């Protein structure tokens, strides 16, 4: 009896709570507009805001992806150092973004070029201007934490390229300044409503702002750092330095692929059903096309289906689709991803033959494919407002700015505290040299 009574009570309660909603649901929906106007504002805000927070957590896990990818594609003796750098970058990225980065990148009204921002505000939880849809489809806190998670990505891209020879303290200073100032300044030009935004430049989730920026920062860093010892012999031979764990690298790429649902899906900046689901489809089809294209390209051009190329192909497709994930068709997404997957294989081989030592292919994946993805918006976008000329101009602006800013930063560090470890330490491995601890105590290969 008592069970029956409590069931009755619950049903009564449900009818009372959802009575209003039930009336809406009961109506026949005749158009999209009618559906939207029938939606209740507060639940919509909750869903939008929750999606941004889930997306934030997905972007966070990309940092584990970068960490394991970089670890897998380098040697055992530098593993602790790589993991350490990745831990440092996410941490310094979040703190500096709170202190200055967020307000530098989103300064509100500004001259369009430069406004160094102050620290994060501290609005109360009942503040209508920042905690309701008066602010956006998400709260001020969600806005900050989602963008903060993005910020550290740019510096993480550099970490892989300079691996196995960069001096730890020099790199920590480099990464901190890059993520605290240069990334948010460049980001403000588009996402902060700056001059490139006003020109009509389109970069949905950051093919240029995050990836080309990171990739060309990495190129400058690698050029001034020099190749790893033994990579290029005095007689002009190119010696490959084999990564030590393909399982680690593969785990990393799967994590990055997963995280990208948040990176691109969250960049819709609401839980808009149509847009978020379109972005999921374009993002993941581009990744799959990039993988297949890189497998075919490496099988024919390099004679073997190289797994590291397949992994880079997935990332190339993801980087490529990031600028236009919201504004291309699914067929366009496959084309963008496939071209990225082909380009990345040739780019990696070309850069290696140019004696530029990039152990993980960061310049090719993020730099070259970041440019490709941004340009591709001008070619494949279904939005007639997107112009090829402005896309080319915008992405080259980001590549050039990142290259120059990173060059200045690396050169200053190089001639003050030093950017590269000594030859003896490089030979012994940075794990022992910088940290005094091997990654795999008692299991380590003698030459690796």
């Amino acid at each position, binding site marked *: 009896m008592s069970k029956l009574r409590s069931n009755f009570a619950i049903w009564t309660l449900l009818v009372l709570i959802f009575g209003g909603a039930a009336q809406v649901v009961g109506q026949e929906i005749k158009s999209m507009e009618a559906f939207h106007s029938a939606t209740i504002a507060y639940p919509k805000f909750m869903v939008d805001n929750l999606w941004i927070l889930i997306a934030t957590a997905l972007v966070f896990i990309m940092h584990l992806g970068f960490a394991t990818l970089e670890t897998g594609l380098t040697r055992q003796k530098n593993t602790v150092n790589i993991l350490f750098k990745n831990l440092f970058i996410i941490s310094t990225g979040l703190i500096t973004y709170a202190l200055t980065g967020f307000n530098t990148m989103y300064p509100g009204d500004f001259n369009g070029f430069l406004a160094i921002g102050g620290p994060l505000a501290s609005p109360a939880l009942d503040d209508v201007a920042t905690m309701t849809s008066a602010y956006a489809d998400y709260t001020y806190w969600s806005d900050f934490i989602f963008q903060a998670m993005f910020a550290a990505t740019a510096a993480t891209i550099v970490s892989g390229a300079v691996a196995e020879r960069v001096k730890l303290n020099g790199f920590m200073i480099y990464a901190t300044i890059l993520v605290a100032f240069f990334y948010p300044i460049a980001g403000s030009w588009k996402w902060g409503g700056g001059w490139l935004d006003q020109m009509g430049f389109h970069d949905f989730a950051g093919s240029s702002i995050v990836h080309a920026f990171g990739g060309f920062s990495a190129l400058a860093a690698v050029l001034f750092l020099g190749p790893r010892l033994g990579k290029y012999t005095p007689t002009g031979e190119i010696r*490959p330095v084999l990564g030590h764990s393909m399982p680690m690298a593969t785990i990393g790429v799967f994590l990055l692929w997963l995280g990208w649902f948040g990176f691109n899906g969250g960049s819709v900046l609401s839980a808009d059903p149509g847009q978020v689901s379109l972005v999921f489809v374009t993002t993941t089809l581009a990744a799959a096309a990039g993988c297949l294209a890189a497998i075919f390209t490496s099988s024919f051009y390099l004679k073997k289906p*190289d797994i590291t190329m397949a992994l880079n192909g997935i990332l190339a497709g993801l980087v490529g689709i990031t600028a236009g994930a919201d504004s291309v068709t699914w067929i366009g997404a496959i084309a963008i991803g496939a071209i990225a997957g082909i380009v990345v294989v040739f780019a990696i*081989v070309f850069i290696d033959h140019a004696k530029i030592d990039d152990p993980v292919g960061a310049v090719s994946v993020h730099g070259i494919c970041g440019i490709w993805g941004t340009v591709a918006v001008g070619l494949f976008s279904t939005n007639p407002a997107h112009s090829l000329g402005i896309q080319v101009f915008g992405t080259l602006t980001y590549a050039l700015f990142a290259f120059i800013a990173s060059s200045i930063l690396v050169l200053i560090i190089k001639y003050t505290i030093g950017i590269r470890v000594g030859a003896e330490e490089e030979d012994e491995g940075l794990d022992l040299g910088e940290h005094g601890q091997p990654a795999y105590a008692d299991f380590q290969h003698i030459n690796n």
Partner: protein
Amino acid sequence: MYKIEAYLRPSALEEVQKGLGDLGIAGMSVTEIRGFGRQRGHREVYRGAEYRIDFVPKIKIEVIVKESDRDPAVDAIVQAAKTGKVGDGKVFVLPVGEAVRIRTGETGDAAL
């Protein structure tokens, strides 16, 4: 007494161990090594750059046998390790001056 040193494919280990065991030979040592013989190494490609694997993974087994076991042991190893393809390996036989069994102090054939 003789020492038999055999450089073999890693996959041959189990059959060789069985072959020697069937002869009643008690005790052998195995080491994982890398090396090349007449076959040299082979070429591979990593991320577009060619490299040679000169030292391919092999195993080395070491067995000390009394004189009467020498030829049957060598035959057993050759029979067990032979695939007929390049890279099967080699067997070397060396004379041994003395042997001492540490626990009992026995010497010569009795120590084996």
